[in-house]
């Protein structure tokens, strides 16, 4: 999905208070006017969005599941062609939807930005929905040759990606324009929420309850591709068998670890040296491994992950359970004629 040249023009802002512990549900505070950001602030807002939705990023391609008249989707789509007054009013209904979706009292208060604009070479219409939590911090300025520091307790949209979530509706087709309800097939959706990466339950209220979306592509095939392309990549490297074995171990650990989304940049963050990063990401890009988050689904790679194998040219195969393979086997020396492998265990049986 092409996120180039993203321009956000009209921006409405509302405030979603924290749920009271007593269970009463305070209403959002609505902004009365569109906000007017200067060019620099607008650029920063755009950067915050492309950093989490762009290529590559941890965003997820989703599709709209809830398209009833009160759904966030049906509230959002008309904003594209709304006049200013209707834009403001429509955006309030979206704030109400978010307020309703947040049922747990541990969700902090947040600022909700709703913006319309355009994206991509085709400059398709978009609606961006950004929910940002606030942060404390300091700012400084110089006055009369001195440095003054000011405390700020309602800072939002800093670079900390844990503190904001984004949904972007991209209108790729105009077929249902003019109909009472828009067709979800006219839209592509991208969602970013750092909670998506570890446990979708914490994220569910945002992408599922509020935005009414779900994963557009099954992770089954993509996870298998991810696994295979990594093995291809390891094969291209001019490294020793022991190093190759380590890389495979990393891949197993990464896939077996507790996470809902997998991503090449995260694999690089955790396991690859900096100098290898660019060529690795490039290889994955060239081999069409998605640049956005992949829903981890091991069903097609389960058997490959169960056992590790080292195969020799003369037909010998060494096989072991994948768990702790590294601690069981070490490739000590390798030459073209022979390989010295140490197995940390005594021989139990021969057949």
């Amino acid at each position, binding site marked *: 999905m092409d996120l*180039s040249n993203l321009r956000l023009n009209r921006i409405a802002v509302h405030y979603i208070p924290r749920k009271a512990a007593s269970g009463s549900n305070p209403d959002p505070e609505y902004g009365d006017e569109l906000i007017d950001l200067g060019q620099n602030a607008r650029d920063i807002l755009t950067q915050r969005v*492309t*950093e989490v939705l762009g290529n590559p*990023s941890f965003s997820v391609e989703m599709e709209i599941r809830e398209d009833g008249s009160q759904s966030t989707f049906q509230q959002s789509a008309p904003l594209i062609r709304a006049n200013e007054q209707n834009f403001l009013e429509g955006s309030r209904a979206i704030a109400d939807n978010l307020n309703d979706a947040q049922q747990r009292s541990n969700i902090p208060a947040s600022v909700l930005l709703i913006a319309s604009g355009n994206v991509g070479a085709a400059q398709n219409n978009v609606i961006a929905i950004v929910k940002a939590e606030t942060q404390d911090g300091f700012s400084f300025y110089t006055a009369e040759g001195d440095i003054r520091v000011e405390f700020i307790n309602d800072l939002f949209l800093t*670079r900390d990606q844990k503190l904001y979530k984004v949904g972007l509706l991209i209108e790729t087709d105009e077929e249902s324009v003019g109909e009472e309800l828009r067709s979800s097939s006219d839209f592509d959706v991208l969602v970013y929420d750092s909670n998506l990466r570890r446990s979708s339950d914490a994220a569910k209220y945002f992408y599922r309850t509020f935005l009414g979306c779900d994963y557009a592509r099954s992770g089954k095939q993509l996870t298998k591709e991810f696994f295979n392309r990594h093995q291809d990549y390891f094969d291209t490297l001019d490294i020793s068998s022991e190093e190759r074995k380590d890389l495979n171990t990393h891949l197993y650990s990464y896939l077996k670890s507790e996470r809902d989304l997998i991503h090449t940049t995260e694999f690089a963050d955790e396991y690859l040296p*900096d100098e290898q990063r*660019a060529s690795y990401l490039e290889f994955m*890009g060239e081999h069409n491994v998605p640049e956005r988050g992949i829903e981890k689904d091991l069903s097609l790679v389960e058997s490959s992950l169960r056992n590790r194998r080292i195969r020799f040219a003369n037909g010998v195969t060494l096989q072991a359970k994948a768990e702790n393979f590294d601690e069981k086997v070490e490739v000590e020396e390798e030459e073209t004629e022979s390989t010295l492998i140490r197995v940390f265990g005594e021989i139990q049986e021969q057949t």
Partner: protein
Amino acid sequence: MTESELRRRYEEERPMYEVYGAYVRDTLKREIESAADPGDFGQLFKIPPNYRTKKPKSFIEKALYRDKGYEDPYEDITDKVGVRFVVLLQSQLQDAADAVEHAEGFEVENSRDFEEEWRENPARFEYQSIHYIVRPESDLKIDSEFTVPEGTPCEVQLRTLLQHAHSELTHNTVYKPRLVATPRVRRSVAKSMALIETTGDVFRSVEEEIQDMNKQYRYINDRLSEIYETFGTPEYEKRLNDFILDEIKPLIEDIQFELDEVEEFYKSDESNSVVGYIQDRAEESLLYRQPVILLVVYLVKEHKFKVPDHWPLPDEDLRPIYSHFGYGLGPITGSAVR
């Protein structure tokens, strides 16, 4: 002429020589500046050009007590006033010499030619510098007070900085009171001169390498400027532009890249939005007025994973370009805050 006659005449004329020296300095400075290129090496003149008139007592000493055998000491002493120019490189020295030899309004005589000297005495290493005696071709009216008569001599010395260092070390102690110049000192001086000449050669090869690189850079910058000029006015700032180009160069060598690709891109409609973006930014940012920014933008588009490793400025300066193309720089560099 007796000593006191000589002294009186020189003291009378010395103010004229002062004015004359300043005139020669200013005139030749302009000539040399238009002929010699400071290149990448800072100021052309390594020591601010200046003149000096001989002190009366050393004039007298030279005229009568140095065994020079002058027939007419007043006229024969041609360095009553002298001007000195000091440059860094031998090639600049050569250009400066050409400029002096062709200076308009002066008759120029080469009073000491280093090249001629070493051809005659190839095994000797000693004081080098180019000396000229310049004389006005006609009476020179400098201001209402002074007229310099036709033929009045002024000595002009041209040196490299290394030669200057050597002569500062040796001139007063070794050559003038001849007795001080013991064989050991002379040997050391000859050694240092040989070393200076060798260093000069090494300087030259550095200069040639730099010029070679400059040629490549100039070619790239010229092409990029041409493209830039189709939609805006670049403002080339060598330090910034070439600093970035320096870092990016290994990348473009690595990817076997042709500047034609960049040109084609900026000619195509595909570039419309990014050109608008560069124009907007250029109003506020010198970085976006550098020709090299066109290359950076193109490389980001085509090689987003590789560019950050070759970007010499903070990521914050690169992020807007990535954002424009819809690329997440944080995930690419592993610097996302999450």
